[in-house]
């Protein structure tokens, strides 16, 4: 798993690559904590994420909690038809973190 981070004045984006699973979720959590900037909406870009397990989905929920506690919004950008998008949808988390194009 690799994570890159972009920030503008109003917005921040986390781009996740590779696999987010039992082995890598710790790295994701700590990278998010390092980069996260208060007061900005978040886009979680998982278009390049090849695999996610429930532990990875829980990490997304942790990030969503952080964003909500800051009274900001979080959105997800996922590849159409991918298993990653399907799992986020099936878990019900798309209601908390809506998909954007």
């Amino acid at each position: 798993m690799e994570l890159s981070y972009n920030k503008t004045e109003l917005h921040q984006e986390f781009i996740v690559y590779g696999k987010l699973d039992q082995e890598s979720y710790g790295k994701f959590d700590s990278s998010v904590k390092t980069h996260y900037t208060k007061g900005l909406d978040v886009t979680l870009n998982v278009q390049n994420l090849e695999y996610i397990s429930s532990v990875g989905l829980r990490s997304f929920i942790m990030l969503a909690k952080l964003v909500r506690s800051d009274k900001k919004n979080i959105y997800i950008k996922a590849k159409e038809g991918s298993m990653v998008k399907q799992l986020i949808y099936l878990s019900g988390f798309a209601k908390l973190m809506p998909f954007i194009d």
Partner: protein
Amino acid sequence: MQSIEKFYPNILQYKLENVLFEVKGLLSNLPSLNDEVLFKIEFILEEFITNSFSHLDLSHNCVDIRIKLHLKEFEIEYEEIGVDDLNFAQILLRGQEKNLNPSLEQPGGLGLNLIQQISKKIEYSYNKNTRTRCFKVQFL
């Protein structure tokens, strides 16, 4: 290779990460399968194995796990030996309720619920004599 079978006696002697690493390594040697099928197999096995380790009673239980993957039948059989029965139907029902009303609290039973949703069929049985839980998943 049309099937894989792995047996881990007394999983207390293993680390979750090592078991997952080994099992995922075996998957990388499978004959060419499409990405969606491989994703499902990896997901199902990771969720079952993680569940086994996270629900272990570290002080008392001696739990064995047996994994069987039958590619021809698109079937995974996952056994936990030396454990109590569980209310499988209730776990799935709770998961479905959470899907309808998701919250930011840490969701329990998420893995099993997602296995059910991405699979064609999932069956659960319990053998009282051997104290074995058996999950049979038809993933395609």
